[in-house]
């Protein structure tokens, strides 16, 4: 079974520029999550999708971050404009069901963003 695919692996941009990350979850996984992991900290949930609907985006800085999962499969996360404090690893995860209990969450390797 293929894992969660993310691209790009690394991205360096200047502040105030825009950037987009892509995630392809495991086939058939209904729930998709985007996490932000700042160096030395645990991942923080940004947004959670169930199929193509948003379940929770309470931690997403909506003035600059946006995410979509149009066909209920792959997803993109965008930052516009980027700030220095957005430097982090952006992790995508998916689970077969919304609970993640029965089947667990699977994480991708992440995109490391550096804003200079």
């Amino acid at each position, binding site marked *: 079974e293929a894992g969660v695919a993310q691209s790009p692996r690394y991205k360096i941009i200047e502040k105030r520029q825009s950037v987009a990350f892509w995630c392809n979850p495991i086939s058939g996984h209904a729930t998709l999550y985007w996490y932000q992991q700042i160096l030395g900290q645990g991942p923080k949930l940004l947004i959670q999708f169930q199929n193509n609907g948003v379940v929770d985006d309470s931690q997403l800085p909506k003035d600059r971050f946006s995410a979509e999962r149009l066909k209920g499969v792959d997803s993109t996360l965008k930052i516009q404009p980027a700030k220095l404090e957005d430097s982090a690893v952006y992790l995508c995860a998916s689970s077969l069901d919304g609970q993640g209990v029965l089947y667990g969450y*699977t994480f991708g390797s992440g995109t490391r963003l550096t804003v200079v």
Partner: protein
Amino acid sequence: GESVGLHLPTLSVQEGDNSIINCAYSNSASDYFIWYKQESGKGPQFIIDIRSNMDKRQGQRVTVLLNKTVKHLSLQIAATQPGDSAVYFCAEITWWVSGNTGKLIFGQGTTLQVKP
């Protein structure tokens, strides 16, 4: 508020010794806990989980203990190996009141260093 924390940021052990990584959580409503291992440049990887109606669960070389009275979780790794060197996170799931989905919240992480 919701938070999951670990007691020590770094733990250094000798190869072959047993390791114990601790975690304190604050949300007494959480009913499912997971330990993740994260190696450099990779996403978190599932190790073991435990439901709140259990106090102990064993896997291969790993044991998770849950003490709901003091809201404490621990991960024990037997005969620690160099390949166990990584950052370990505890995480909790709290269910949404509505809907069939939960929210995965991570703690800060403990770096395990295994000395040969």
